[in-house]
């Protein structure tokens, strides 16, 4: 996210300033994101899979609560596996707590300042291969994993990015994040990384294109949970 956003943040406010009428009228501001994003999603067959709704939320939180109880009981009784699990969970949580606020604030700023027409032009249905390349660059410079990529993908879709391009972004955020790549090169050698990139990126773009095109025809949309 680093270079990409710093580059755009310099340009974006100006862009948005030139078109003050761009997003205010008709409630097309960023706030309409969830009703606008939810309604089309509800039309999908998604409801059948029973996910993401209130029930799913309650189940998730119940499982977490039980897990915390389990860890607390293990800590009290000295059950080693439970304590180890608590430690694992804690260290993972800590990393996330450090990364997430910064990443989400950047997503919020992107949502408010980047005008729709720019996203549409570069990442929309007519963007072709360049759209995929932009997304690989954006994903490569991002921090965090899928849990940052998905909210970002929602925002991009709301602003007019096409589904094939979005699937490339999601895939690429696993494949080519810069910090991971640096680790990989330093421990596995550059050849290993180059082979991986040369094989996975074209296949990713191809599969995203096929999957995205099919789903777009069916009217599929990402929804904020």
């Amino acid at each position, binding site marked *: *996210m680093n270079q990409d956003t710093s580059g755009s943040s310099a340009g974006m406010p100006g862009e948005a300033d030139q078109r003050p009428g761009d997003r205010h009228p008709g409630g097309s501001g960023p706030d309409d994101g969830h009703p606008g994003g939810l309604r089309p999603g509800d039309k999908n067959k998604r409801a059948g899979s029973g996910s993401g709704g209130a029930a799913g939320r309650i189940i998730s939180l119940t499982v977490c609560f039980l897990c915390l109880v389990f860890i607390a009981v293990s800590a009290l009784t000295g059950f080693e596996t439970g304590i180890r699990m608590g430690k694992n969970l804690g260290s993972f949580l800590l990393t996330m707590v450090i990364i997430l606020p910064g990443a989400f604030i950047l997503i919020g700023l992107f949502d408010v300042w980047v005008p729709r027409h720019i996203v549409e032009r570069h990442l929309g249905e007519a963007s072709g291969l360049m759209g995929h390349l932009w997304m690989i660059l954006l994903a490569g410079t991002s921090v965090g994993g899928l849990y940052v990529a998905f909210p970002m993908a929602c925002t991009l879709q709301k602003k007019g990015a096409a589904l094939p391009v979005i699937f490339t972004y999601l895939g690429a955020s*696993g494949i080519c994040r810069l910090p991971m790549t640096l680790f990989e090169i330093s421990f596995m050698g550059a050849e290993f990384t180059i082979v991986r990139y040369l094989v996975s990126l074209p296949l990713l773009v191809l599969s995203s294109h096929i999957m995205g095109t099919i789903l777009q025809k069916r009217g599929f949309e990402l929804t904020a949970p």
Partner: protein
Amino acid sequence: MRMVKEYEPGIDSFFQIMVKITMYLLYILTGLCLLLSFIKSRRKSAQALKIAWKKFSRLVPAFSLMLVLVGIALTLIPDRLILEYLGGRGIWTAAGIAALFGSITMIPGFIAFPLSGILHAKGVAYMVLSAFTTTLMMVGVATLPVEQAYTGMRVALVRNLISLVLALIVALVTGLYFGELW
């Protein structure tokens, strides 16, 4: 095992430096953007923060479920043991096991790559290590709760299956490239 333990302090400090640099960059960038935004328009900046908070809070239930799954996976399948046991079998079996573990667990790259490097030095094939690290990066059973909240379970499963196939192709080509299959 001993070799791994000796290596660990180095990995930790390297990792800590990397994490610190990333964090500093992230927060310097975020701070600068936020400052610029506030100078331009206070109202819009407040709106941006509100959006950030809303998106974050909606992610919390699915995210905490993922944390628990990761916690369980990391506990039941200790990463060092998996990697230690990859070498002994035939290359195809080992690659299969590696891909399975890579899909299920969520070992951070800063642990997985250094260990893979050590294991390669011990004679484990690149193809096996590629199957492991590539599925680790591309296929996420533990992140399914997060993913299905955004796309629904069917699309999430299909996307992960496709990723698994891609990862296996990558591993195969890696094996071919390094001449490990003949």
